[in-house]
C-alpha cells in the first residue's frame, strides 16, 4: 500500500512511516529497507505490525481496502454537510488597539462599522441554506459586545427559524468580556454560549500586548472571566494566547498564569500575518524557527505540570494529536485538507460581504479581495461556485500540493491557501520557505519524538487530551 516516511530528529535508528489514512509505525532502518524493497520476512513482528495497520496486504486486498476506505471516509467526514461554522462579524468597533490585531479595528463610536439588521437577516437565511445538521454561530468583531443589540437580534431570529429547521445549534463568541455584565451575562447564559477570550499571560505582558485607553486590560479581562464563570459556569469559557516576540521569552510564566486562573487548557497561538500584525511584524513579529523552541519549552513545562497532577493541556497540540492518535476529524477548521476555508467555515462581514474565512476578510482589508465569495444576498450555490471557492479548491487540497503530497505528516496536516496568499502572495506557496510548513513540520517532529519515546505518563496525558477524559491514575503500587 502507498506510504510516506521521514526520520525524526532525536529518534535514532528509526524511520516513521505513515499511511494515507493516518496510521503510523516506527520501523528499524533494516526493517524499513526490507519493507520498501518488498523483502521483509513475513515471520517478523514488523511484518505483522505493518499488515495490521494496512501498510501491507497479502492476497485479495478487498477486505483491507474496505477498512482503509472506512477510515478515509471517517477522517474526511468533516466534508459532509458543508460549512458548519458561521462567523458573524457584527461590528469592527473595538476599544482596544492591540499591536497584533488581525482586524482593521475601528474606534468604539463609529456605528457605521456595525452590521445592519437587513444584512444580519440575509446572512441568517444564507446560513440555513447550508445542509449541515449542526451549526456553530460565532460572533466576532471588533469587540462583538459593542454591538450587543445586534447579537440579540441574530440569536433570537436564528432560534425562531430553527423551530422549523431543527438543527443542532451552538452559539459562541470571541470577546474581551469587558462589557460582559448583568443583562449581557443573563442573555449569554440563557443561550448557552461558548465564550473565548484573549489572555496573553501575566499582567505586564498582557497589557503591553493589548493596550487600551486607561490600560488595565488584564485586570478587566480577569474580572470578565470571573463574572462569566459565575454566571455561565467554568466550562463555558476558554482563552487563547497570542504570542508576540516578547511572549517568546516567557513560556513558563504564561502557562503559570493559566494554571493560576484555573484554565484546563491554553491555546498558544503564534502571530498571524494579517491586519496590523503584518504591518507591525518588524517590531513584534518573529520567524517560526523562533516560535518552535518556545513551543517545545512550553509543552515540556505543561507535561511536567501534568506529571505533578496539574491538569492543563495545550489546545493546538490537542488538535494535532487527535489527527495523529484517533481515526476521527476534529471540529477545528483551520487545519484541514481540503481546507476549512469556505468548506468548513464561512464569514459574514458587517458590510454584507461573505468570506471563506476570518483571515479571508482580513486579507480583503489588506487589499486582496480574492477570498470574497460574494455578498449575503447571493445564494449558497452562488457562493460555493464563486471564483474565490474555485481558487480555494484548486489550492486547498494538501494531497495535491507540491511538497505536501509526499510529506509523512500530510495525513495530520492541512492546506492553508489563505495564509499562503497573505504571506507569499500565492495560495500554493513555496514549501521550503513557507511558515505554515515550517511550523507544522516542526510541531509534528516534536510530537512524534514524544510518541517514539513513549514515556507512559506522557502517553496517558496525550491520550487524555484527545479523548477529553481525565488522565488515568494508576494505583500507587503500580505507578512506579
Amino acid at each position: 500500500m502507498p506510504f510516506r516516511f521521514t526520520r525524526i530528529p532525536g529518534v535514532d535508528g528509526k524511520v516513521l512511516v505513515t499511511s494515507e489514512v493516518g496510521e503510523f509505525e516506527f520501523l528499524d532502518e533494516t526493517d524499513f529497507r526490507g519493507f520498501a524493497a518488498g523483502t521483509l520476512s513475513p515471520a517478523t513482528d514488523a511484518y505483522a505490525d505493518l499488515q495490521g495497520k494496512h501498510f501491507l496486504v497479502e492476497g485479495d486486498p478487498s477486505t483491507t481496502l474496505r477498512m482503509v476506505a472506512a477510515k478515509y471516509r471517517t477522517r474526511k467526514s468533516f466534508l459532509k454537510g458543508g460549512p458548519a461554522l458561521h462567523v458573524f462579524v457584527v461590528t469592527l468597533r473595538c476599544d482596544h488597539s492591540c499591536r497584533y490585531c488581525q482586524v482593521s479595528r475601528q474606534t468604539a463610536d463609529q456605528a457605521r462599522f456595525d452590521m445592519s439588521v437587513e444584512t444580519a437577516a440575509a446572512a441568517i437565511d444564507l446560513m440555513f441554506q447550508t445542509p449541515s445538521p449542526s451549526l456553530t454561530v460565532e460572533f466576532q468583531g471588533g469587540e462583538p459586545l459593542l454591538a450587543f443589540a445586534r447579537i440579540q437580534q441574530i440569536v433570537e431570529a436564528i432560534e425562531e427559524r430553527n423551530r422549523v429547521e431543527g438543527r443542532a445549534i451552538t452559539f459562541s463568541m470571541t470577546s474581551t468580556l469587558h462589557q460582559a455584565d448583568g443583562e449581557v451575562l443573563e442573555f449569554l447564559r440563557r443561550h448557552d454560549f461558548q465564550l473565548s477570550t484573549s489572555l496573553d499571560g501575566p499582567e505586564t505582558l498582557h497589557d503591553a500586548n493589548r493596550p487600551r485607553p486607561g490600560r488595565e486590560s488584564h485586570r478587566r479581562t480577569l474580572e470578565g472571566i470571573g463574572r462569566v464563570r459565575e454566571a455561565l459556569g467554568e466550562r463555558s469559557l476558554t482563552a487563547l494566547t497570542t504570542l508576540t516576540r516578547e511572549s517568546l521569552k516567557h513560556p513558563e510564566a504564561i502557562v503559570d498564569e493559566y494554571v493560576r486562573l484555573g484554565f484546563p487548557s491554553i491555546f498558544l497561538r503564534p502571530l498571524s500575518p494579517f491586519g496590523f500584525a503584518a504591518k507591525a511584524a518588524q517590531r513584534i513579529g518573529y520567524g517560526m524557527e523562533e516560535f518552535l523552541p518556545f513551543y517545545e519549552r512550553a509543552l515540556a513545562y505543561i507535561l511536567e505540570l501534568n506529571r505533578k497532577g496539574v491538569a492543563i493541556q495545550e489546545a493546538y497540540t490537542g488538535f494535532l494529536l487527535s489527527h495523529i492518535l484517533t481515526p476521527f476529524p476534529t471540529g477545528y477548521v483551520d487545519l484541514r485538507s481540503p481546507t476549512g476555508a469556505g468548506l468548513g467555515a464561512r464569514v459574514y462581514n458587517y458590510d454584507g460581504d461573505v468570506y471563506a474565512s476570518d483571515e479571508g476578510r482580513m486579507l480583503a482589508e489588506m487589499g486582496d479581495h480574492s477570498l470574497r465569495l460574494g455578498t449575503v444576498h447571493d445564494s449558497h450555490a452562488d457562493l460555493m461556485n464563486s471564483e474565490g471557492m474555485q481558487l480555494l479548491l484548486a489550492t486547498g487540497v494538501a494531497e495535491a500540493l507540491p511538497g505536501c503530497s509526499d510529506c509523512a505528516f500530510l495525513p495530520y496536516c492541512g492546506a492553508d491557501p489563505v495564509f499562503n496568499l497573505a504571506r507569499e502572495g500565492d495560495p500554493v506557496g513555496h514549501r521550503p520557505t513557507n511558515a505554515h510548513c515550517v511550523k507544522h513540520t516542526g510541531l509534528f517532529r516534536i510530537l512524534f519524538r514524544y510518541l517514539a519515546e513513549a514515556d507512559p505518563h506522557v502517553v496517558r496525558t496525550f491520550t487524555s487530551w484527545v479523548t477529553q477524559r481525565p488522565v488515568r491514575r494508576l494505583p500507587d503500587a503500580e505507578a512506579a
Partner: protein
Amino acid sequence: MLPLHTRAVISGALSRQLLKVLDLAEALRGDVPHEQVAVHLDDGIDVDTGVLRDLRFAAVMRPGATDRRPDDVLPVICGLSNTDVVNPGDVIRVRQDSGQLSVLYRRGANANSLFLTVQCNSRCLMCSQPPRDEDDLWRVRELLDLIPLIDRDLPQLGFTGGEPTLLGPLLPELIRSCKAALPWTGLHILTNGRNFADPAVADSVHDAAGFATWAIPLYADVPSRHDHVVQAAGAFDATVNGIYNLAERGHAIEIRFVVHAQTLPRMQHFAEFIWRNMPFVSHVAFMGLEPMGFAKVNRDLLWVDPVDYGPALAEAAWHLQDRGITTSIYNVPLCVLPKAAWPLARQSISDWKNVYDPACEGCSMRPRCCGFFASHGPAWRSRGIRAFRFDEAAE
C-alpha cells in the same frame, strides 16, 4: 450451582412437553394461556384440581409429593429427585416417557441463553462447546414454543450455539419471535459473523437492529493469526466484512477476544486495530479461557498463566476504555489481575461459571470476583491465586 435437570414422577397424560410453571396466584392472573401452565402447588396448599381443569390449566406440580392425590383430575408432576431445580416462573420440558424434567428458562437467573444449534463453520482451538455436524432443527422448533413463555420483564436474553447463522431463515424467524413476544428484552447473539459477509444474510436479520447486540469474536489484527485460532481459512476477512455489513445496517456489535497463548502476541495491536477500524463497536470483552471442550485437548497450545498476561491485558483493555469504548474483562480472577485492571473486571455473567478455589476462603474480594469456571482443574490453576486481606482490598 443449581442443576438444569432432574427426574420427576408424571401421572396422567400431558398434552404438551413445554410448560410454564407458575404459582396459583400468578397462574390465575392469566398472563400466560392456561393451556401452557403447570400450576405449582406447595405441599400445604389444598386446591381442587377439578376447578383448575375447568380453567384449562395443563397440569399441576407438587414438587415434594411422592404421588398424585386420589382426587387429582389433572396430570400431576411430582416426586422431583431435586426439588430445588424448578421454581415458579421457570419454563420446563417434561419427557412423559422418561420422567426427565429440564429447565429451559429459569426466572431470576443472572443469564438466560437459548441454545440454537450444535453446528458451526469454525473450529476454534479453545472452543468450549465443540460443534457436531448433526441435524438439530428440533431445537429451533422447541425454542419457538419456548420464547412466548419467557418472562416479559427479562432484561436480556442470549442466543448461543453453535453458529446461529447456519440456521438460515430460521434465525430471523427466532429474532422476530422474540421481538413479538419479548419487546422489552435485549438480545445478545453469539456469532462468528462470517456469514454476514454476504449482504443478503446481513439484510435478513434487519429485525435485530436496535434490538440485538451481535457478539462477535475477533482474535487478531492480522488474518493469519485469527484464521489459525478459528481453524478456518478466510475467516478473518469474512468476519470483518460481516461486522461492517451489520454496522452499516445499524446493528450493535460487541467484540470478544479470548486471551491465550495463540492470541496474546497480537493483543495490544488488536486493541489499536479495533480503535482505528471499528470505533463504532458498543463493547469489547476480553475473556479468560473456559477450560472445556477443545480447550482441554489443546491445553498445552493455549495455556498462559493469567498472572503473566495480567499487565498486558490491563494495558490492552484500558487502551480501548480510555478511548470511550466500553471494555470488560471476564473470567479472570481479581488476584491474578493487576489492580489497574480491577475497574474493568466483571463478575462472570453465567451462574455456572462462579465457583471458587479453596485458597479463596476468607478472601475479602470474593463478592466482587468472577471466581472460576466449574470445569476449572489443577492444570488450569494460576500460581497467582490467593486471598486478599480486608486492608489490601480496601486500598
